[in-house]
């Protein structure tokens, strides 16, 4: 790499709340030297068209993610428990409000 290239600023994950009453949803990521500037950059990069009214920024390194290889052991147990869904149960046709 040439001399001009320097180390990147930390990476931040950006979450946008579309409107009051909804949860914040991941929108993307960006680089910024600190949280305050990350919020300012997030406003320019991810909410140019009134996409939201509240922003969260989180340092990407602070996010703990599950390992894709653990997918089986983590989520497979739920697959065999179809009785957790209402559609598992048989309800007589003539009974309502269930």
């Amino acid at each position, binding site marked *: 790499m*040439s001399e001009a290239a320097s*180390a990147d600023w930390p990476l931040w994950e950006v979450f946008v709340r579309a409107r009051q009453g909804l949860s914040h949803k991941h929108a993307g*990521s960006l680089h910024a030297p600190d949280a305050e500037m990350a919020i300012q950059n997030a406003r320019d990069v991810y909410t*140019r*068209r009134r996409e939201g009214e509240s922003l969260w920024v989180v340092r990407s390194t602070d996010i703990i993610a599950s390992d894709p290889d653990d997918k089986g052991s983590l989520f497979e147990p739920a697959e065999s428990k179809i009785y957790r869904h209402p559609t598992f149960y048989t309800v007589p046709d003539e009974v309502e409000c269930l």
Partner: protein
Amino acid sequence: MPVTAIPPEHADDPGAPGFAAKIDTETKIEPKDWMPDGYRKTLVRQMSQHAHSEYVGMLPERNWLTRAPSLKRKAQLLAKIQDEAGHALYLYSAAETLGTSRAEMLDALHTGRAKYAHIFNYPVLTWADIGTIGWLVDGAAIINQIMLCRCSYGPYARAMERICREESFHQRQGFEIMVTLCQGTAEQRRMAQDALNRWWWPVLMMFGPHDSASANSAQSTAWKIKRQSNDDLRQQFVDMTVPQADYLKLTIPDPDLRWNETRGHYDFGQIDFEELMRVVSGDGPCNRERLGARVKAHDDGAWVREAATAYAAKRRTRAKAA
């Protein structure tokens, strides 16, 4: 031997069957999933080139910011240019999920090692060029990007969805400029026709070489990075654009252009792919100017980046002291 999702060198890799199954069942590949080295490399190259194109794409339009014919047009062009910067940022972030860094990618662009779309190396001579760029260059880009929304790599596909949503305004503002010019004075109509004459063939080149001459097409298609062939996308663009030019009463500068009843498509003339290769490899009308402007903007902005870093450091120190 047919090209498959798993290149021969990965045949015995434990991650290979899972990757092949995901590609097969249209399940997106995500950053932490196993992937063939070539898949990663192809995506880093393609996504960073795509990001560079968005980035450099701001430059041809900037001269017209202060020369826009009205405040409304100026505000629209400013918004479009700001979008291009945003699109570059989405794509750089998406490329970083594959293990490259922003600094590395920018360095590759600034030192001329990385490529960007050849179309931005043509001069933007009149206001009608701004209209034509929005109408045709963004129009062609949208066709390619709609395809990429279905690309197998999750972060790329997601960035593309967002970009496509935003870019339809770019194409419409361009077409509106053309409508205004074409309904204007004789001189304005001449200006519109002149811009179309200069941009038409370079725009057709944006879809890349013929499929038969495209080196990476087969592997990219097997990986579902590429979902449609260069020639199919180009045909789609021509079929879509001819009626629009007719509406403007402009003449597409191709004597071989005519409707083919049997194919149900427009036939069109030969594209000069040598020109494409020449411009891609650095010898277009504005290559040096564009790259020079990009490097200058980066260098001139160094103090802003340094100030931001210093400000962040100062605030951290004060927060600790308090």
